[in-house]
């Protein structure tokens, strides 16, 4: 799976309240959630984000609550991929389960800025910053999780088990 997209960069410890504030959790409609995606981290984000854009963030992205609404909002906003120095555990798990591509890449974060254009091979974990010409190697998914992603998420993965 290859992605090409424009970067929006965020800092450390972006929590799930910043990704989708609880005041909008009285719905789980992806399009409605997308309208408020990242609102408390950057109020302009929902209006400027475009299909295929890439979120790049520093450490512990998605910390806090277990709300799956967070990766759902990001995915529905059109974001193709999230790259972070590290992810909080539940957010990581939720992203795999709903099929939102994510990559952990400690080495590249400092050298990627908002507006850069990235080219990413998800399976190999290869990240190329077309704005600087630099390439990076992220940790690809373990096979087990890639298996879930390949099925399109955990529910499709489980479907065969419960037949």
């Amino acid at each position: 799976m290859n992605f090409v997209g424009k970067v929006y960069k965020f800092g450390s410890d972006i929590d799930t309240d910043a990704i989708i504030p609880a005041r909008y959790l009285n719905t789980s409609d992806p399009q409605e959630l997308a309208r408020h995606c990242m609102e408390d981290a950057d109020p302009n984000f929902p209006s400027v984000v475009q299909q295929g854009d890439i979120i790049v963030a520093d450490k512990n992205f998605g910390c806090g609550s277990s709300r799956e609404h967070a990766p759902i909002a990001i995915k529905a906003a059109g974001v193709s991929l999230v790259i972070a120095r590290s992810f909080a555990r539940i957010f990581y798990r939720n992203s795999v389960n709903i099929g939102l591509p994510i990559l952990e890449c400690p080495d590249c974060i400092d050298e990627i800025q908002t507006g850069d254009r990235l080219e990413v091979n998800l399976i190999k974990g290869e990240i190329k910053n077309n704005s600087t010409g630099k390439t990076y190697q992220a940790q690809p998914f373990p096979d087990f999780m890639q298996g879930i992603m390949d099925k399109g998420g955990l529910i499709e993965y489980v479907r065969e088990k419960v037949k």
Partner: protein
Amino acid sequence: MGMTITEKILAAHADRQEVRPGELLNCKVDVVLGNDITAPVAIEEFEKLNMDQVFDPNRVVIVPDHFAPNKDIKSAEQTKRIRDFSRKHGIVNYFEIGRMGIEHCLLPQEGLVLPGDLVIGADSHTCTYGALGAFSTGVGSTDMAAAMATGEAWFKVPETIKFVFYGELPPWVGGKDLILRVIGDIGVDGARYMAMEFTGPVIDTLSIDNRFTMANMAIEAGGKNGIIAPDRITLDYVQGRNKRPYKVYASDPDAVYSQIREYDVTNMEPIVALPHLPENTKKVSEVAGTSIDQVVIGSCTNGRIEDLAIAAGIIKGKKVHPEIRLIVFPGTQEIYLEALRKGYIEAMIEAGAAVSTPTCGPCLGGHMGILAKGERALATTNRNFKGRMGDPASEVYLSSPAVAAASAITGKITPPWEVA
């Protein structure tokens, strides 16, 4: 080579003799939990599987607590969804308004989570039940859906950090202060993906309510689970509540830890976490005098009877500061009733507090105490992220019930000994 209590519980639920950190396991779950925010998404995913029933209707627990009693029409639709689902699938442990509580106070109280259990909940504070010696962790809605279908979930065996507390616990210092000190020490991702095992002579004598508070906030250090090995205090609490057998596990003396961190509590002061992360901790005396607009006492972190006893003990016979809104949330109806019978509720209402039916309410900025722009709350809750309790330009400070109660009286952050 020995195993930790976390490794033993995971091994037992995967039919394995031995497991090591890093291994991926498929485990049987004893309990699957969801609430009015996370369960609707889980139900939608579950229904994609076209199954007639959940894996075991006795082991799925659904609690409308976040935006319940319904704060608006959309919330009413969400609780209706989980109520209808619970009726359709014969979910025995769906708790209706008037009988419900804040989920992480309610499940232990009802004996639904027990020592040695493996519990997943679509709520990050599901780690609370580690206080009973269970492996218990937060997951998302899709994991909840998959577990409702299969009774199973996958896990990576975490490394364990052992936290040893020794010394003599000073007056006004409790579980909230211990866990805030740990989070201040290791940071909000200091235990990311890891098990946090709390031990030592201080833990050995710590009450079950204080233990719940500590395990509850393991997630605020990024932990996968917090856990305390069961002892007499645990079993006294569980006795009479359990409706099924349980198993007590303990770490082997030669268990392997990724880190061992020791804390002398003897000279500790109550701790306050400043905006906008729980790791921004200070001693209460360092932030004394900070002005506040609202005080919240309650939540899955500090809404238990001992918390209310401490708060009422400080507040009784005094008045809440005229410029302060004090809002109190007992964790469950049973806790509420006990607090009523013991005079805690009366003392707080006479002082000028608002007392609410159990709800997560203001803790996550849902309802029942939202902050306006520029306002500041002191809360016994667990998170102080930007905008957590309302406007993105509002602020939340975190503390124990003792500090919160004292501060409600003076109108500014105050060490409890200055008021009590």
